[in-house]
């Protein structure tokens, strides 16, 4: 995971201190029945060693006597389609029907550690790893077809380094739509999400939350709660919670505990003062706390700025937003002696295993984390707090415990996408060519920090600050914020250079793949014409961007009526190399765009006096069916190029395109996300 930690410094959640420090073990374990292997039913080899990946073919693949192939990966399915895509990848190289393939995902006892499900890495890393293993297995199968024992023996060896996978031109399964694996279970309600896991004798848990941010539990009067039948109270340092036979009774227990809880408080910045606060607490220089973020320089930005024919300066703000996946965080924990098993919705099973081992002072081998396919993540489920909480409650109760965060908890206590402040200055010559670029990002993060436009002299930096809210990864992470500020500033520069926004971009853009999507989107939308023929109350905007090896461009038309922005029409063109599953890709690209509309127009964490003021769907507006614009999504299939991940980048162009369209409709330049309307 450090592999992308290097260039995405905003994965704040991975650097958080342990959520709880529990008192030393009181050794009150109960011997519990049950457990056992949930999924591994081939009966051949029992427990599998995790963490071997490439080195050992059998860690990746298993063949049952009936020819069923089981593929093992630590990747999770959170709706992005990895289960189906990896099934296709294995089918492709094995040359067998996808129905013969089962995937065991994210069970730390059984799977190799492929890293977490983050950074759009499944397509460029895990798909190739599965394909190499499958291709190697195919060779072995062909050579030992008559002798299953010989097959298994050979599968136990390493994957040869010279194994070749099929070129895109020969694909039979990849490149085509494979219907979603498990779709029948989804439509019948049989699909088990983390919140749906039940265990014999299982209780329901709840955790006591502080009423405000920056509060510390100092005293807890448990008398009232302990009178409630069936309620078991746990109070361990700053952690307090309870279990009961139903969530209803657990909720009553927590209400009783809350009435007897006393907190000390420290002041907490309000969202009104947020951007001043970020600027005031920015850390520069390596002496600063977490250290400073990346700073990249090219040529001499300050000299070029001083000598530029024209310069322009502006600043932009991006609010905190919440992922709000439909399934809030959930975990079921079960102890058998000192062995802990947890089912939870996390994108990082091995990391959560480590967190659990640390929290309970047990060796990692004693902890098993399983991730049932989960109801949405969007980068918001990288941490193990819910698993730890459930395990602490289960330990006290001596029974398995299911803990499901409420929506209110998910809004207030899950980590947010970082807010950001951006200060940009640029210089350009008499022809509109950029000559100097000075860019500072406070807090939002490093993904998408560099400009894709050609400029000889630049200083680009990212500064850490003291974030008042818990923050971390999000689909597309900082690329969305960086692209928002940068693309809107490009529009301002175009105006200063007296050019239309498309021409100005193309003049300053060399990257052929980004040019291709931009030109294609502009043409399909007839951007240049529509930009010239301005209609009252209506505007069009364009934006593009690249991140993690894929390319997106968007054109949007907005209409504004009675102070409401309506996004009426969007054309988007996306390119991520060779397309592996067209229908799933379209779902990701459209889903990104529509999700991105929410943050562009409405989503924003509002907090005051340590309280999140809009932590409910009633007050935190997310996209609904009626918000979907007329949509023209065009996917460029580049069979000649390596496939890149696609679940994130398509979110980065919609906000600036919409914001530009708002200005084009006759309103003031937009410099904040979410967009606020102001007179011209």
């Amino acid at each position: 995971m450090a592999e992308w930690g290097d260039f995405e410094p905003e994965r704040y959640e991975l650097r958080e201190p342990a959520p709880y420090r529990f008192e030393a073990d009181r050794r009150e374990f109960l011997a519990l029945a049950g457990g056992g292997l949930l999924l591994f039913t081939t009966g051949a080899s029992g427990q599998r060693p995790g963490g071997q990946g490439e080195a050992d073919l059998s860690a990746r693949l298993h063949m049952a006597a009936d020819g069923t192939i089981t593929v093992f990966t630590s990747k999770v399915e959170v709706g992005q389609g990895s289960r189906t895509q990896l099934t296709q990848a294995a089918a492709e190289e094995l040359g067998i029907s996808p129905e013969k393939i089962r995937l065991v995902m994210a069970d730390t006892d059984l799977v190799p550690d492929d890293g977490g499900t983050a950074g759009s890495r499944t397509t460029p890393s895990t798909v190739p790893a599965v394909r190499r293993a499958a291709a190697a297995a195919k060779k072995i199968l062909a050579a030992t077809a008559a002798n299953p024992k010989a097959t298994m023996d050979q599968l136990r060896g390493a994957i040869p380094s010279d194994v070749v996978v099929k070129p895109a031109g020969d694909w039979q399964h990849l490149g085509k739509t494979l219907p979603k694996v498990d779709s029948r279970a989804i439509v019948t309600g049989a699909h088990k999400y983390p919140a749906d896991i039940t265990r014999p004798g299982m209780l329901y848990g709840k955790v006591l939350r502080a009423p405000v941010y920056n509060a510390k539990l100092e005293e807890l009067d448990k008398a009232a709660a302990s009178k409630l039948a069936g309620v078991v109270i746990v109070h361990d340092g700053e952690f307090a919670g309870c279990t009961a036979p139903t969530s209803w009774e657990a909720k009553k227990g927590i209400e009783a505990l809350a009435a007897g809880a006393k907190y000390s408080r420290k002041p907490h910045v309000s969202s009104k003062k947020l951007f001043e606060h970020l600027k005031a607490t920015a850390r520069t220089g390596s002496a600063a706390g977490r250290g400073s973020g990346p700073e990249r320089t090219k040529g001499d930005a300050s000299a070029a700025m001083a000598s530029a024919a024209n310069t322009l300066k502006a600043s932009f703000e991006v609010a905190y937003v919440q992922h709000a996946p439909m399934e809030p965080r959930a975990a079921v924990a079960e102890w058998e002696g000192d062995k802990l098993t947890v089912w939870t919705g996390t994108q990082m099973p091995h990391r959560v295993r480590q967190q659990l081992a640390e929290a309970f002072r047990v060796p990692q081998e004693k902890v098993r984390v399983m991730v049932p396919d989960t109801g949405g993540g969007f980068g918001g489920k990288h941490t193990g707090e819910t698993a730890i909480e459930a395990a602490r409650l289960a330990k006290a109760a001596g029974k398995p415990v299911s803990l499901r965060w409420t929506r209110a908890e998910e809004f207030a206590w899950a980590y947010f996408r970082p807010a950001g402040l951006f200060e940009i200055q640029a210089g350009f010559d008499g022809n509109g060519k950029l000559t100097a670029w000075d860019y500072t990002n406070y807090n939002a993060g490093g993904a998408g920090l560099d400009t894709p436009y050609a400029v000889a002299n630049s200083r680009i930096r990212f500064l850490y600050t003291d974030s008042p809210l818990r923050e971390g990864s999000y689909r597309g992470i900082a690329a969305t914020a960086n692209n928002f500020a940068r693309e809107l500033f490009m529009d301002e520069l175009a105006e200063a250079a007296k050019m239309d926004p498309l021409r100005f971009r193309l003049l300053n853009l060399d990257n052929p793949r980004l040019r291709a999507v931009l030109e294609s989107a502009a043409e399909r939308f007839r951007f240049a014409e529509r930009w010239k023929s301005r209609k009252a109350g209506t505007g069009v905007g364009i934006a593009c961007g690249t991140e993690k090896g894929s390319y997106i461009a968007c054109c949007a038309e907005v209409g504004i009526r009675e102070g409401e922005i309506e996004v009426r029409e969007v054309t988007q063109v996306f390119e991520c190399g060779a397309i592996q599953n067209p229908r799933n890709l379209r779902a990701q690209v459209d889903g990104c765009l529509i999700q991105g509309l929410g943050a562009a127009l409405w989503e924003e964490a509002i907090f005051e006096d340590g309280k999140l003021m809009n932590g409910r769907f009633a007050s935190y507006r997310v996209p609904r069916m009626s918000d979907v614009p007329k949509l023209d999504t065009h996917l460029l299939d580049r069979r000649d190029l390596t496939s890149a991940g696609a679940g994130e980048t398509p979110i980065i162009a919609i906000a600036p395109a919409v914001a530009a369209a708002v200005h084009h409709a006759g309103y003031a330049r937009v410099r904040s996300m979410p967009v606020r309307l102001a007179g011209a």
Partner: protein
Amino acid sequence: MRTKITLLVNGARREVQTDPERPLLEVLREDLQLTGTKYGCGEGQCRACTVLLDGKAVTSCMTPVRTAAGKQITTIEGLAQNGKLHRVQEAFQEAEAMQCGYCVPGMVLTTAGLLKNTPRPTEAQIVAALNGNLCRCCGYPSIVAAVRLAAREQSNG
């Protein structure tokens, strides 16, 4: 206080001992192990918890269990008949109107409720009926396509 309540769930009589004020959602999930009905907000704002009560789509998180007594409750598990999927389920599968799928049970039941009373809904009626159902994967385009498909199959068949 626990009371005995008789529920008619998916055609079967089920008895539960429960606080009558408890949300039907919780009773379905925790007492009857019908976990296909999902929690998304617990306050009527997302409709992940939709079930049919006497054929009408309601939010089970906002339905105290006592008010469901004696009514026909249909959950997502009860929609298919003898292993044959309901046409709305088929349409969601065929249009692949799902990413994580967590909102799908609520979407399917809301659609089933809609088509019962409005067999040939207009685009505007579809949006009006489903606008309260949140999908954070934002798969709305394929969800609309699935509803259209289900409506078409219904009027053909």
